[in-house]
């Protein structure tokens, strides 16, 4: 799953029948530091509670369709949760190896 920011809504009256009742939103995919990465995409909202401005996470490809109640649908990106909090590790356990790492020439202990 990747982070995204909801930046708009999509309304389509005439659509493939199995997509009835699904809410579609415009999302901007984000990088790990929550800065925009790549172009905006359209996602189905599997939480049914996301709205513009919210930080969400989403799942792509086949798993996107499986997030929905009726999962045999033509969807390839779905919002699966609304983020409350992200806590990023910045200490020594991030900087240093936490597994013994044997390379051909040398090894680094944790």
């Amino acid at each position, binding site marked *: 799953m990747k982070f995204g920011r909801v930046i708009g809504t999509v309304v389509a009256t005439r659509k493939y029948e199995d997509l009835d009742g699904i809410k579609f939103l415009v999302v901007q995919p984000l990088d790990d530091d929550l800065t925009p990465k790549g172009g905006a995409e359209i996602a189905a909202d599997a939480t049914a509670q996301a709205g513009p401005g919210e930080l969400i996470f989403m799942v792509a490809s086949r798993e996107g369709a499986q997030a929905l109640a009726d999962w045999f649908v033509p969807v390839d990106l779905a919002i*699966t949760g609304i983020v409350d909090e992200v806590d990023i590790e910045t200490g020594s356990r991030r900087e240093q190896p936490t597994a013994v790492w044997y390379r051909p020439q040398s090894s680094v202990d944790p």
Partner: protein
Amino acid sequence: MYIGKVTGTVVATIKIDHLQDRKLLLVHELNLDGEETGYYDIAVDVVQAGPGDTVMVIDEGNGARQILGIDPGAVRAVIVGVVDEIALSE
């Protein structure tokens, strides 16, 4: 699968049923020198991993569904092991 490092935790109250009661962690992929490649993912943890741990991540839907025992299941990335040691040969 790839080797990654747990770099953070993600908290979400509102989420789909498949993720209910699951711990979500932020993981960064590591290259063979143990450095972060820049690729990240939000993964479900089933091995009690924590921030800083070097872990093994599967990023494939069928394996994830099998591990979590749900079908259909909207999960791709799952942390399936905490790595103790990596040994590379020539």
